[in-house]
């Protein structure tokens, strides 16, 4: 029972003609992660694995609080801990909930060669449709945030789905509901942008001069946004300063495709007309010269 029909799919990977674009009034949803309220408790990790029935392996402690230490096919969101001193002398412990940013112009969808393996819904969620995934790993190259993970067990790509199943029946994502301090909030994109900017102003009042909303334009804005205490230095927390789909990927998936296909087919057509016009090079030409 899925309540998202084809009209709700606004973009599909490896599909030359556009999908139905009629639902222009569908609200764009967004998740806002307010780092200033995040206590790194990993409730979102646990809620995510419980809702999606995932259980990663039980790893080991490698001397940090990050467990597991990176996104994996079975851990779609992971807390990353950064001990930084932006201003000399006062230590800050920045904690960031890592996971899919659900970009407006998703690099993964652009890079994916398999039709329908990656879709973007009208509400902005970018989702993997695992039956169509062929495990080629192109999405890993396409993503500016290094999010998709390919499973060794089934060679399928996995990432946060922004709980597309909950959202499709009107519920908020599992991590949003469980976040104890309300660091994660959810709503329409406009509301979340407005709330994020207001939070940034409030943080400025509390002394974080460079607080700001992280909603990178390079990928057309994202449906998962951060309020960062140091929005001027996102790299402090392994966040690209102004991410965009790599020009190499755009080149690879943008202009070369039609040009190359045109050149190949064009070459064949050219050869055909060349043959018709110039005609073949005969073998016997030698004998006639002898004869003459």
């Amino acid at each position: 029972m899925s309540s998202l029909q084809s009209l709700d799919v606004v973009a599909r990977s490896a599909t030359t003609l556009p999908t139905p674009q009629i639902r222009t009034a569908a609200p764009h949803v967004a998740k806002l992660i307010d780092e200033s309220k995040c206590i790194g408790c990993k409730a979102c990790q646990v809620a995510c694995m419980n809702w999606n029935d995932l259980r990663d392996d039980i790893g080991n402690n490698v001397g940090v609080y990050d467990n597991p230490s990176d996104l994996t096919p079975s851990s779609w969101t992971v807390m990353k801990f950064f001990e930084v001193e932006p201003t000399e002398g006062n230590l800050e412990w920045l904690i960031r909930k890592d996971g899919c940013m659900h970009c407006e112009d998703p690099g993964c969808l652009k890079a994916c060669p398999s039709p329908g393996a990656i879709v973007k819904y009208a509400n902005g969620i970018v989702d993997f449709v695992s039956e169509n995934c062929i495990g080629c790993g192109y999405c890993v190259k396409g993503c500016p945030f290094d999010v998709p993970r390919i499973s060794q067990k089934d060679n399928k790509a996995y990432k946060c789905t922004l709980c597309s199943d909950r959202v499709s029946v009107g519920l908020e994502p599992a991590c949003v509901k469980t976040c104890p301090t309300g660091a994660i909030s959810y709503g329409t994109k406009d509301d979340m942008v407005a709330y994020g900017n207001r939070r940034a102003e409030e943080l400025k009042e509390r002394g974080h001069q460079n607080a700001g909303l992280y909603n990178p334009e390079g990928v057309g804005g994202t449906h998962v946004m951060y309020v960062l205490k140091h929005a001027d230095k996102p790299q402090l927390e392994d966040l690209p300063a102004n991410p965009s789909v790599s020009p190499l990927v755009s080149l690879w998936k943008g202009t070369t495709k039609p040009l190359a296909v045109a050149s190949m087919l064009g070459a064949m057509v050219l050869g055909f007309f060349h043959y018709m016009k110039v005609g073949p090079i005969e073998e016997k030409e030698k004998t006639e010269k002898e004869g003459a």
Partner: protein
Amino acid sequence: MTNSWTDIKNTDLVLIMGGNAAEAHPCGFKWVTEAMQQRKAKLIVVDPRFTRSAAVADYYAPIRVGTDIAFLAGVINYLLSKDRIHLDYVKLNTDATFLTKEGYAFEDGFFSGYNGERRSYDKSTWGYQTGKDGYVLTDDTLQNPLCVFQQMKKHYARYTPELVSRITGTPQDQFLKVCEMLAATSAPDKVMTICYALGWTQHTVGSQNIRTMAMIQLLLGNMGRPGGGVNALRGHANVQGITDMCAYSEVLSGYLSAPTDADDTRAKYLETRTGKPLRPNQMAFTQNFPKWHTSLMKAYYGNAATKDNQFAYDWLPKRDAAYDILAMFERMHQGKMNGFLCQGFNPLAAVPNKKKLSAGLAKLKFLVVMDPLETETSEFWKNYGPLNDVDPTKIATEVFRFPTSCFAEETGTFTNSSRVISWKEKAVDPPGLAKPDSEIIARLFVKLREMYAKDGGTLPEPIAALNWPYINASAPHPAELLREINGRALADVMSPPDPKNPAAPPTVLVKAGDQLPGFAMLRDDGSTSCGNWIYAGCWGPTGNLTARRDNSDPTGLGVFPNWGFAWPANRRILYNRASADANGKPWDPSRKYLAWNGSSWAGGADIPDIRPDAAPEQGVGAFIMNPEGVARLHAVGMAEGPFPEHYEPFETPVGVNLMCPTNAKAVSNPAARVYKGDLEAFGRKEEFPYAATTYRLTEHLHYWTKHSRSNAIVQPAPFVEIGVDLAKEKGIRQGDRVRVKSNRGEVVAACVVTKRMKALDVNGKKVHHVGIPIHWGFKGVTQNGYLANALTPFVGDANSQTPEFKAFLVNIEKA
């Protein structure tokens, strides 16, 4: 908690000290972030480590483990010397004006009346001077040097900022910044709240840690007010509930002090516990003690408890000594204990000095463990290599393990930190043959009763007479039990004589058989029964109020009066009379909680914590449980002194108490009980130079969630935490395996090297901290590890015997 979780959103300043609210109580901590966002409140964290609470705090200050009293005493000195106190509040609600006895003194680390051999105080020189009419003498001008206010000023003048910084290692500027932020809430319209937990209680000066903060809250005028109070963030869902049911040797259900050998007759027992006002018009609520105790005995023994058998007073066991958990294991260790029932508790992991516990358990004849999970305690006899190196053939204890249901498989109530009792329904059946705890205890008792009926034995009468009115004797239904706890009228409860017209015949307040609406209906003539007087009212005539789910909050102050039932009498903030000034006007109009409307206190946001018709001019104090009706800055009840004094932990990295450097006997708490054998087991700083503390992480709940796969994934393996500079000194890199040793045992784990634990400058020397999370053992789905309590010292707080898990000495090296 004196206030409640949702009340925290009303505060202007949150101090998190002696606790780590963000990690240990994340969902409660939401109300701190709510206050920060909505009211622009500030959050200060003072902790040896830069915890995840500090990650979102406005201000963080480091402190050496075990020196909280020095820090807070320095704050008191700051408040008193700079006159940053809420004077009207102090004069109205505290004993500041009372005169102390002439004999009271404090000299070089000891209060007057110290007895070195018995390590205890003769308290005759403490307390207030009382006049011939039995009321205390006061000096409202606060100038008399004997008044509590001046005594306090003199006592705390010694805690200069410079000395406090030298003891605690907190840089002086940071200490003064915290003092100033706290002092700001002395303004009548400003309130602060303190969120603390085991970081304060688990010291040999634990109780005094909390008292010092309570004194600060009184001086700042924050007790009993929305957004104020002293809030203990307790560890377990129903630890407040089991505390109220008083599963302790010292008290009976409802905090009724239990009889000891000295209480040879019931009259003497009641007389010493019935409070009498020490000031005119005080409610001295403990004057109702006989009603509570008689009702409890009727609940226990029903018809068998009558006037002529002193309401079964003799059947109540009298206590002759201490039987707290440390005392019990000491007796076990001495071979004096034969049996041990261990219900939902994992002492081998949770009690200090694992080696001693293991030896004690091995001397038992039988051990019965009742737990939903396979605990370390139930398998103390099994060899798990270095994690539990024992020889089963040498352990003769017969060990039973009963499968019990867990919370999801048991209908009943929990009481949370905010004293709210909430009813929950069973979701699923217990797995296999597991049964609820109540059913197991009931079946055990019924079998014992049969055995005594058939074969007799020592003192069979109380067993035969124990009131067992349950429809299914071997499985009492929670509803029956909660109604019994609430109490009901055994005979018609008559109204007390009306002072205005004494001739009027008494009216029937509660018909026989009905549930009691509240503890005001309890009688000492045997006409009422009540299992726990503070819970009276939770299942009154209108039904089970604990099951109420109306989450409306009409005043917006986070009171939620119709959600569940808060004891006592559904009051959500204790001492809330103190939220209004002398003539009944709220201190802060924007947070109007209680006000005197000319004829009554009712109609405010909460049930008044005072007689509703007690007009302000009568001067009825807000602290109705105390005979003097006001809060105690000078508290006689404390074992180690009426005013909190800094004492070093028993294993101190400094070796001397800088408050009394010459008195070698007052380095550590002179009144703490130390068993022979444990004194020798204390490590010295020469061999164990680093100050260690044990604590929990947000991903785990003690030794319980290591059985849960989800939590194992997000925090898989044991580790210890050290600062970057200690790591450099020891050549330890991030992730190396390290061995941490104390004088009692060792732990091997991975090592987290972090900037969040800096070395502190204490008395001119560098003191490093070693942090040891406690969550791993040799059972569970996580990576197994050593029990952290192999390291901890076997000594407890002088008043509560809570062990000193938070400050001891270790050494660390690469494993």
